[in-house]
């Protein structure tokens, strides 16, 4: 077999074992259990074991299951979709800015809309940083302005124009009912309307944000859960150098 073909591993190569948990909106009964198995068979699974069924409300049944997943995928054809950061560190980044850009760069960050979560953007911007990686405020070659949370798109844009930002960092944490999509889209629309879209490197971040997702919304990059500040700085510098034709 093509050794690039992979599927989940339980305790033996290619056994395909996966665990599932979900609730079905039916009364707990032998029929509900069977329905769970039938349902899972629709998900390309076999040897389905419904190991636990429990009534968690009049008409709802909680289910724990194990099964073998049938398909293989070709791992050699998978393409990762993280932002390309070049993985530079604090020192390299400052050195590059100083030597190649020959000026400090300006970064503005905020958590926009009604999102009150500031810890994420703080982790990227504050001196202290995150997970033993310094925040942007600590970079001697970066002027970092953190506007905090609950900032309207308008405020963010006008501030960024005022300080002549190179990059604008936007944080979004609440994603229930796609709350984040509305906010992120609005910002892009405003920038486009004011012809500012290409002036800034526009970056989105938050636990539920992927690079793919952000790029689709019109951002230059997206950073997800447990991002470290230097990855972001790395991305910005690389992008600026590219713009300047330095790489």
């Amino acid at each position, binding site marked *: 077999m093509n050794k690039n073909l992979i599927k989940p591993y339980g305790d033996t190569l290619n056994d395909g074992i996966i665990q599932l948990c979900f*609730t079905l909106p039916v009364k707990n009964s032998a029929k509900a259990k069977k329905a769970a198995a039938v349902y899972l068979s629709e998900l390309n699974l076999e040897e389905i074991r419904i190991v636990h069924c429990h009534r968690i409300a009049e008409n709802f049944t*909680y289910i724990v299951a194990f099964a073998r997943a049938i398909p293989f995928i070709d791992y050699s054809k998978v393409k990762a979709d993280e932002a390309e950061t070049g993985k530079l560190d604090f020192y390299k980044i400052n050195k590059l800015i100083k030597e190649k850009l020959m000026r400090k760069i300006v970064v503005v960050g905020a958590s926009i809309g*009604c999102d009150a979560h500031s810890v994420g953007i703080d982790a990227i911007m504050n001196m202290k940083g995150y997970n033993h990686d310094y925040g942007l405020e600590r970079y001697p070659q970066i002027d970092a302005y953190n506007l905090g949370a*609950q900032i309207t798109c308008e405020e963010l844009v006008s501030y960024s124009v005022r300080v002549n930002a190179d990059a604008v960092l936007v944080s979004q944490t*609440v994603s229930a009912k796609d709350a984040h999509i509305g906010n992120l889209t609005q910002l892009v629309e405003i920038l486009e309307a004011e012809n500012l879209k290409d002036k800034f490197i526009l970056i989105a971040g938050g636990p539920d944000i992927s690079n793919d997702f952000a790029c689709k919304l019109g951002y230059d990059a997206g950073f997800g859960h447990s991002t470290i500040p230097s990855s972001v700085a790395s991305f910005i510098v690389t992008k600026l150098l590219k713009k300047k034709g330095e790489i």
Partner: protein
Amino acid sequence: MAQIFLNQKKINKAKALGANIAQNIHDYIKDYTTDSVERSVLRLYGVDDADDEKTPLCNKIVDILKKEKLINSGVSKYFAAAMLKTDSHANKTAEMIINNKIDLKKVLSMQSLEKISEKEQTLAQDAVSVLDRSKKVKNAKKAGFPLCEKPYRYVIVATGNIYEDCTQAESAVYSGADIIAVIRSTAQSLLDYIPSGATTTGFGGTYATQKNFSIMRSALDKISKQQKRYIRLVNYASGLCMPEIAVCSAFEDLDILLNDSMYGILFRDINMKRTFIDQHFSRLICTRADIMINTGEDNYLTTSDAVEKAHSVTASQIINEAMAKQALLPDDLLGLGHAFEIDPEMENGFLYELAHAMLAKKLFPNAPLKYMPPTKHKSRDIFFSICMDTMFNLASIATNQGIHLAGMPTEAVHTPSMSERHQALNSVNYVFNTAKNLCDEIEFKKDGIISKRAKQVLDSTIDLLEKINKSGLMSAISQGWFAQIKREPDKGKGFDGVIKKSENYSNPVFDIISK
């Protein structure tokens, strides 16, 4: 209960400092009212309709009074006069005011001040009897069931849709929940009005509306009967409408309100004066209607480190208690908050958690402490999160807490789904039962890590309270001493809703319930 030794003199000192800090705030706020306080008066007088654009009538009336610069005297006498004029019920009167059928500028001069004052008294008495009724109704309901054992099992529902919330709540009660909190839609606390009607479109929570309160209350009453235990209902007051939410909650027989004297300031950037005034009136209403308050000290630990800043939680609890006492809240309605938020990677972190939890018990022996689960350090590996919650559940039963917020395996992922709430409650039920009397069994070494830690936090608390007392609470907040967030006294949302009372200000409800 598991015991730690603390110096009673130090406890007394901390409490005295708290009382002083609260008194200073009280001295300031007694001369002020707010938009929301005035709107509350209207709600208490019966104005609960909204216009076609869903703007509450009480907002419109207060806006008119503000425009006319009459607001400093309070809405009470104007509205009483208007009612005398229309000789109709409150909503009708409100409509007529809004439609310019009645001119508030002139309404006072249209009848004798004595008659107006009499009408105000009647309206106020009626309002207060509605608050009293809520207390009675709840007590009667509770009496019908066996006493619920502490810690109460508290879970949230947060679908955004009040009807789905009911489904979720029913399931949660079925799995053992004693308390259901309907989380509000994100940023509702920044709305300077209460939305109206049944709603189905919240983000990360469901709008707090009087109608939603009543829908959930009925659903819970139904489940209460089935499950043969009283189920408490919680909503959130802190925000720009603190006192109004309190009024609606009393109307709909809610049991508990998230109601912190500083949460809105710190976490919502709401103006501090506005908040201090609002929380006071809202708490007076809670006292009268027998609504327990829950404070939000747990939130500090989402932005600050739980070990480093443990004393800020304790200091805030002491201040919240002192302010609650200003609003006449009895101990058993004092759900002071704290949280199990120490980094799970810290060596002996659990010992510190026990120390913190016992310190709170020791400082507030008669308050039903609200103990919050780990949130900030929750893993996205939901299987690991369950371990953390299990340890939290144990800390809670081992230290005899009052209200236990069930931690969710998916805390770091999404608002909980039905299955996750079931998983969470399974753990709570198991631990509370299997370690039921552990708290009566254990003693901690006098000179051990736990005892030392409790003492150390108390000492730092006293230091902090002394500093706050010296500078005043408002200045303390502006220096970032809580949650490392700085807020200015005259900035923040809702500052324009702070109103200096004029000499002839009247608010007879306030007068009755603050006695």
